[in-house]
């Protein structure tokens, strides 16, 4: 069974709906390490050694966060800047993360249709994620298509709970290595493979 590390970032978790459901679901899965970054580092003082140790003992790294300004909450960027350092995570000497699986679990306020040329956001969502995708690749990790919950601004409670179950199933399948590169490379979102 693969070991999963979820790095969760939400500055106002107390006001969150979608991410709360996903986070609760994730914490119910056996063998998943759930790390609440804003709770642990409210002053942005990231413990680099501790974070690197955790990365090393896990096989699948998941960044779970709401999509803010087409990107991630500030603390998660701080975490990446401090933890994924040259000579450890990447570069000639940096092989700590080689071959690990990398996944983003996102929530976006609007529907998937608004992420298209000519629509409100004018780009497919995957295009906004290129910086992260490339970050994972330069660290020699395998970038999985993201798990995305769209339209959370107006989503109804039962539907949200269904998304929680979906996320749980995705985590279980990941633990059992049910996804293969050949399959995931075709998919836009991981949701589509469930």
């Amino acid at each position, binding site marked *: 069974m693969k070991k999963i590390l979820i790095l969760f970032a939400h500055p106002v978790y*107390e006001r969150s709906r979608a991410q709360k459901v996903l986070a609760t679901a994730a914490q119910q899965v056996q063998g998943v390490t759930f790390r609440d970054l804003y709770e642990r580092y409210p002053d942005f003082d990231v413990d680099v050694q501790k974070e690197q140790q955790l990365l090393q003992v896990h096989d699948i790294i998941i960044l779970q966060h709401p999509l803010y300004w087409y990107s991630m909450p500030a603390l998660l960027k701080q975490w990446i800047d401090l933890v994924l350092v040259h000579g450890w995570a990447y570069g000639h000497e940096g092989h700590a993360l080689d071959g690990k699986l990398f996944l983003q679990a996102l929530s976006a306020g*609007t529907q998937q249709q608004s992420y298209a040329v000519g629509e409100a956001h004018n780009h497919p969502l995957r295009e906004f994620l290129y910086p992260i995708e490339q970050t994972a690749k330069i660290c020699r990790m395998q970038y999985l298509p993201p798990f995305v919950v769209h339209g959370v601004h107006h989503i109804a409670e039962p539907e949200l709970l269904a998304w929680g179950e979906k996320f749980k199933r995705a985590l279980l399948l990941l633990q059992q290595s049910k996804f293969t590169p050949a399959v995931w490379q075709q998919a836009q979102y991981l949701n589509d493979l469930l």
Partner: protein
Amino acid sequence: MHQHTIFFQAMVFLAAAVVCVPLAKRIGMGSVLGYLLAGIIIGPAVLGVIGTERHAIMEFAEFGVVMMLFLVGLELEPKLLWKMKASVLGLGSLQVVITAVVLSVLAFLLGLDPRIAAMVGMTLCLSSTAIVLQSLKEKGLLDTTAGENAFAVLLFQDIAVIPMMAIFPLLAPRAAPGGHSEEATAWLSRMAGWQQSLIALGGVAGIIICGYLFVRPLLNIVARTGIRELFTATALLLVISVTVLMTMVGLSPALGAFLGGVVLANSEYRHELQADIEPFKGLLLGLFFMAVGATIDFKLILEKPLLILGLVLGVMLVKTLVLLALGKFFTLSFRQNLLFSLALCQVGEFSFVLISFIRTTYALEPAVTNLITVVVAVSMVLTPLVLMIYEKWLGPLINDGPEDVVREADVISERSDVIICGFGRFGNMAGRFIRANGINATILDMDSDRVDTLRKLGMKVYYGDGTRHDMLLAAGADTAKIIILALDTAEKNMDAVKVVKKHFPHLRMYVRAVGNLDSYELMDAGVLHIYRETSDTSLRMGADVLVALGYRAYHTQRAARLFLRHDDRLLKELSSIHDDSNLFEHQMRQRIADLQQMMESDKRNMLREDVGWDTESLQEDKDIQ
């Protein structure tokens, strides 16, 4: 009033100093030259107000040199001495040996007995610590390469006096007993040469041992009484006892004081001692310079002007040339080398001591010793002039690239950019943090037990009161950039703020406040950086309690910062109205009510404060769907 009372003399000397020194400084000559001129004017040559008693005054004034060397010693921790070992031992020893040999040979060629020629050579190779340090310090040249090397050479000379004093009895022909020499000296001169040398070394060892074993505990006891003037008295007692003891065994008191200073340089009371002795030293040193001026025997100069001029210029030329060669050998730039050589080209005050020693042993007839005394004094008078000429005309002529004035290491004294006054529960946290990040702060604290403890832990803490101007000066307030005031009480802190504002306006003050009330006073005094000692910690505790109750850590963190900002703003508003006490009381009650209200509204609104992550309005916006 009779002309010979001590008050009359004091009046004459002080008046001469008050008139001449500012004048001299105005013309750009420096205080040393001013004092020397004052001495010449009141001496027998011009006004003759001070007549035959000038030798007695000279003896008294030499005590100023003793104090200066005590202070020089205090500045020299063994560690600093070690850092300077190359220039002290290399440059210093070469200067002393080569100059002494050259001058001895010249003295021998002029017809002196070889042994006496050797004594004269050794006497004249010394330079004047008093004049050089004072002049360079005034011109701000002590921190230059030239200044530091000059200091190193002077230091070696001061040390070299020990073996010289020990060798002289061996060189001297047996002295005639009795006569008018002092009793102690007579007792000493009845000994054989080797016995005298042994006593000299014993004296030096005695001072070092006493300094370590007795003086520190004594200072500790005195400091604990908390009576300021008693500490001053002890400091003076120390220097005077050394002087008396050294005179008794026939050694130079200046040397003894220097050693005493070095022994105490590591002690926590260093800055306190410096501050206490400094004013006495300044006055007595001025007196010393005036006495040098007054002792110049103008009759002798008028009788043999050419001989004396020749001798003075000859000695100064030889010394300058030797120094120039050594400076070149030690890779000084030409500009710095010239300053270094010219600064040290005179003969120093130790020479007076050595000459009087030669005189008491009757090794040389009085006519010759008088001649040498005049030569020494004149060379001292010429030094400030030479330095002035260098500064005004020679220096600007030389252009050898960028000025190498600033050198990194603080060799002469341990100066730092930050001074911390008060190393108690507040100051020590701030201080440790600053030091942990590589900033070497100078720390002053008034609790002698605490100072002891901290020093045992290997920290550099000095016993002293940050509310005193002289103490702050000794700690380097004139060159520091920032001062942290964290004294025990709000009143003391306020006193320190006033002193700093008045005397060291360039210092940026970071001040700990106890509560709101003294914060208002500090704001009124114009302090910009005020830290209430409980505000950060209490808020942190409050935040932790919120987290323990289930609040999100990041929310409480932001809430605490926000609250601190609110509170600071409130404090500033209150400070602007608190002058009128009646109004203040009223406003205070009003503000307490406000504060309550504010806190309640804070609590309600805290969650809504960060609208950056708010999605409510976004959900309504049709454009972004």
